[in-house]
């Protein structure tokens, strides 16, 4: 009798696979099933948005990539697969014709090469427009990167592709600028980050600096190009839909003169402007004429509103109890959004900018347009010239400025970005030509959560408050009181120490508050000297610190003990979690401490 050897995953004959073995397959299995080669499989996965899964139990071993069986079945039913087969057989025909020296036939075949259309895929992957917007980050970053890349035939990055990318990204930027959807800008070493808010979705993308980019060799460009192929289609449809909803024809027909001058962005925005205005007028005239059809229109209007309601309900999960509440909230959100947009629209109102040759024109044009300013630049096609007396700001990025008009301010480009992020017009003193501007801070960081607020963020906050004409209480101090766990713990134990500390804290707070208000007053009067203020704080503090130090070690000990004792009773699982959290906190704290240390070092160096 033959001995039956039991394997690790032994399955008796006739029994179906079940569990992870039935649900997942490795990549090579998938490739075999689909009867495609690996590059085509990759391409399909990219286009279709299929990614590997992580099964709980990896049946074939750890060093395999697993795909869900349903995902692969999904690929198998994709018409694109058939299309790619068709394309490859067609390519064979051309090859054959060339091999037989039949140029004629080859040329004729080339005129009608089948191409894969990705429209369905876009629709399938993003059933709703919002979904598409949510996933637009990578798309925009990639397209703006390719718009800045040099065309290289060897890597199949041809000129048309680069131009297409340029055009798409400019169309998008034109939309964002004209509808004032831009919210934040950040100039980093990697490029310029923009954040726009379209239909409630925050979309962040990175555009590289407008300098010759390097094409490294250790990159698989065919993968990137496949991604680009999809992204390009996606952005095209997104742009169409966005333009459609502001009643502008897509694709825009640009002024060829401006296009030749590589200021497509300006051309596109002008196009949108002109078109939307014309359409609005058109609509007005129509409405005035067709008074007779009013009743009918009312009917349609009613239908429309019903439709809208249905849409809204569809968007919400229906079984949620507070569905109506959500609806109202959504509406509120929209209103707020509108306010935000209004604020953005007004930021650079009544300001006229002139860009010098050396500043990054495209970026500044985009930003200033988006925040409601008027811009011109040094070059052909500019709307107004440098000599224009109504220019209020000239943006310059050179060591010294030769001829200066007295009627305008000469500032560095960072001023624009900082203003945009702060949403106020900042004082221009620090941004004057030739001076090293104050630090450029990231608008994406929540300073409070990070635990460290850079000085300049603090000053900007104060300016903001001053612009709103309100005196802030000192939020940081109040919070510190509440948050400090040590204090809380100690409170239970030593009343004396607590009393002392509380009194001390109160005193300190008072003095700080007073000083803060003084500072604010000074600031508002236009005296800007932070060093003086900081000196004052230093003079007041030392007595307090001494008093504090006496009581510290004992309290520290008690707090530590309390901590230890609670830990003694925790279960191992909870203790692990707790310690992980603490460790994380500690890491954050050390980072902040390091920053503070460096700051101190820097200050001592400065004063020395």
């Amino acid at each position: 009798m033959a001995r039956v050897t039991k394997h690790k995953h032994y399955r008796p004959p006739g029994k179906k696979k079940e569990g992870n073995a039935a649900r997942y397959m490795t990549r090579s299995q998938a490739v075999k099933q689909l009867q495609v080669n690996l590059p085509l499989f990759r391409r399909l996965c990219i286009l279709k948005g299929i990614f590997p899964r992580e099964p709980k139990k990896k049946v074939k071993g750890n060093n395999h990539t697993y795909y869900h069986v349903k995902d692969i079945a999904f690929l198998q039913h994709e018409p694109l697969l058939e299309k790619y087969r068709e394309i490859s057989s067609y390519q064979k025909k051309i090859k054959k014709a060339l091999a037989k020296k039949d140029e004629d036939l080859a040329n004729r075949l080339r005129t009608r090469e089948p191409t894969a259309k990705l429209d369905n895929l876009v629709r399938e992957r993003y059933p709703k427009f919002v979904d598409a917007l949510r996933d637009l980050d990578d798309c925009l970053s990639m397209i703006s990167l390719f718009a800045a890349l040099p065309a290289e035939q060897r890597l199949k990055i041809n000129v048309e592709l680069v131009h297409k990318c340029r055009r798409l990204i400019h169309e998008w930027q034109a939309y964002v600028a004209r509808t004032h959807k831009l919210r934040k800008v950040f100039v980093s070493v990697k490029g310029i980050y923009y954040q726009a808010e379209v239909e409630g979705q925050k979309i962040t993308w990175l555009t590289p600096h407008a300098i010759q980019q390097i094409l490294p060799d250790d990159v698989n460009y065919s993968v990137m190009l496949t991604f680009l192929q999809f992204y390009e289609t996606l952005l095209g449809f997104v742009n169409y839909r966005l333009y459609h909803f502001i009643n502008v024809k897509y694709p825009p027909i640009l002024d060829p003169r401006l296009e030749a001058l590589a200021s497509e962005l300006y051309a596109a925005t002008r196009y949108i402007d002109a078109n939307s205005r014309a359409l609005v007028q058109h609509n007005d005239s129509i409405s005035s004429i067709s008074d007779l059809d009013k009743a009918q229109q009312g009917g349609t209007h009613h239908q429309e509103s019903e439709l809208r309601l249905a849409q809204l309900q569809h968007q919400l999960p229906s079984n949620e109890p507070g569905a109506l509440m959500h609806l109202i909230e959504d509406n509120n959100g929209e209103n707020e959004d509108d306010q935000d947009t209004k604020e953005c629209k007004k930021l650079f109102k009544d300001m006229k900018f002139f860009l010098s040759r050396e500043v990054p024109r495209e970026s500044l044009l985009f930003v200033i347009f988006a925040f409601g300013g008027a811009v011109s630049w040094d070059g052909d096609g500019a709307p107004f010239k440098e000599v224009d007396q109504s220019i209020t700001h000239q943006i310059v990025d050179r060591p010294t400025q030769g001829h200066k008009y007295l009627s305008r301010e000469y500032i560095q480009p960072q001023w624009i970005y900082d203003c945009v992020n702060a949403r106020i017009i900042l004082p221009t003193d620090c941004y004057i030509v030739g001076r090293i501007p104050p630090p450029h801070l990231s608008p994406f960081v929540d300073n409070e959560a990070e635990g460290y607020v850079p000085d300049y963020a603090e000053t900007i906050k104060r300016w903001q408050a001053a612009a709103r004409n309100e005196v802030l209480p000192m939020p940081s101090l109040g919070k510190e009181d509440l948050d400090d766990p040590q204090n809380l713990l100690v409170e239970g134990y030593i009343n004396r120490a607590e009393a002392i500390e509380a009194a001390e804290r109160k005193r300190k707070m008072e003095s700080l508050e007073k000083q803060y208000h003084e500072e604010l007053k000074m600031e508002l009067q236009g005296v800007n000297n932070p060093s003086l203020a900081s000196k004052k704080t230093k003079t007041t503090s030392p007595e307090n610190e001494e008093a504090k130090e006496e009581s510290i070690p004992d309290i520290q000990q008690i707090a530590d003990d309390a901590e230890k004792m609670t830990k003694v009773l925790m279960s191992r699982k909870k203790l692990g979690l707790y310690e992980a959290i603490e460790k994380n906190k500690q890491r954050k704290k050390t980072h902040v401490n390091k920053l503070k240390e460096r700051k101190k070092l820097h200050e001592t160096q400065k004063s020395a």
Partner: protein
Amino acid sequence: MELLKNRLVRLNQPTQPNHIQTKFMLQTNSICLIDHLQEELCTDNDNGVEDGGQSGDSKSDQVAEESDSSEDEVAPRNTVGDVPLEWYRDEKHIGYDITGKKITKKDRQDKLVSFLESADDSKNWRKIYDEYNDEEIELTKEETKLICRLAQGKAPHADFDPYAPYVDWFEWEDAKHPLSNAPEPKRRFIPSKWEAKKVVKYVRAIRKGLIKFDKPKEEPRFYLLWGDESSSVEKTGHLSYIPAPKSKLPGHEESYNPSPEYIPTQEEINSYQLMDEEDRPNFIPQRYASLRSIPAYENAVKDSFERCLDLYLCPRVRKKRININPESLKPKLPSRKDLRPYPMTCYLEYRGHKGAVVSISTEASGQWIASGSTDGTVRIWEVETGRCLKMWEVGEAVQYVAWNPLSELPILAVSAGQDVFLMNSGLGNEEVQRKIKDLMRVEKSFAPDDSGNVASDLSWLQDDEHGGIRLRHFRTVTSVEWHRKGDYFSTVMPADILVPHKIPIALFSILIHRLSDKLTQKLPFKLHGLPVVSTFHPTRSIFFASTKKNVRVYDLLKKKMIKKLETGLREISSVAVHPGGDNMIVGSKEGKLCWFDMDLSSKPYRVLKCHPKDITSVAFHRSYPLFASSSDDGTAYIFHGMVYSDLNQNPLIVPLEILRGHTSANGRGVTDCKFHPRQPWLFTAGADSLIKLYCH
């Protein structure tokens, strides 16, 4: 020579060609020959053979006269042939002349001299150094011109005319016959069959629509894809789509002009080099003074590519990130204020021992404590005053001291080395003293019982020196525990595995002695493993013996094991039983404390990891719901350990206080802790030779 000339003449003479092609062939041939002849002629001339009659005849001959091909020059004097000249680089000669003699190299001229010479010499530019022959050649005017012409891509000879008028050598006038006599074929007059076939094929293909000529109509590429949102909500029947996480947003440090504190110092940057590849930060913040000075980011494409890889190669899993407040993880404990009284602060110190205090014991009345130290003394202290009442010199390091639990029998059991002393403390009134003295008298005529239960080689001796009884054991005794009634006590001799003993070790490790009979017996049941500590049940006749890993519970009356408590610890150091008798704590050398609810399970109800070092001793308070542990890390923990009479309610354990004050010596901290029998006070003995009293 003559022969050649004749041939040329013959060729030059027009023959009668009847075919054009042959004529062309001839022509080309003749030109080649002429060229060759020219050379031949000119060599002839140079050789001095005058042939004046021929020279003026034809143009070709004239050209030949002016020829200056290389063959008419003097032969090179070097005969090495076409070999690389570097073979001779290090030699003194450059080769050999025709006679086979070495041609020595010319002396190298001084550079300065040669430069000066060249500066002076106006003809310097036409001098060329011939490496092969090691000589300098001055080019003639004609030669330079020739070079110039060659450089311009012209023919070398000035007289050569590349566009000379074509001379048709073939004579057409006399041709009487056509070149071919064949009649014109039929195929020249009928249309091609194959062409017709091909045309038909094309026509058919066009009719069928297989060949299309008009370009495909261009449709608008983009249209309103998301026109009606409402229809798009139908489920795709596909797996749930997990959107890719968005890339991380940049922080302050990525700014082109960050605050100076975000820029690492040079030392920090250097230290990154020492870091592991994975830990190393891949982005080092940098500061640029102005926007125009930002260079292109070299990793732009790479970053983008890596993002692409992440998007299509990384498995995506939905992970729930819970935002837990760490405070909420901590167990909710009752306020410690409500659990008072418990020992909190050090109230008294008992000084006097010279060495580390190893063991302490409180007297039943709570007025006295006894302590034993490694300096070989046992002392009795008054609790409230800290006065040392009495002192015995035992001579050996004391291991353990224990008061008799009866207050009317103030006897102290002390273990030191292999001896256990029973000492009369001398406390109490005369009647008590008398009673004690009666009890402590050992009859010399003590006849050992022969029954197996009695350990025979153990002797009860009268110890006159200390005024008590001395029990000589065969091994070091580490602990002495009294039974609650004060008549029995047990001694534990932990087995020394290294020394093999005649007597089975496990059998005789624990002995039980009876004071009234002066009798010693071994345990009436088999012990598994090597015992570490033992203790009696506070109310019932149950005995606990603990090995390194487990605690075994024996019934002394039925003489069998009741229970085995599995601690899961590495090495047990001490045990204590709750006065209620159902709960027990076990301290271990890895600093863990186990609480057993013996009714509940044989596994610990709770394991408390409180000490970083060995636990030396654990103790329950007799009346308050308190227990304590002392450790070599120099601290003692006080816990609230409430046991409820309701069996459904689990014991409540709350850590109350960490008592510090002892300094550690030789790696030992607090060696023993005991509660006061009535007050919520704790005595601790330290390796720093102090005994401390902590009060509430």
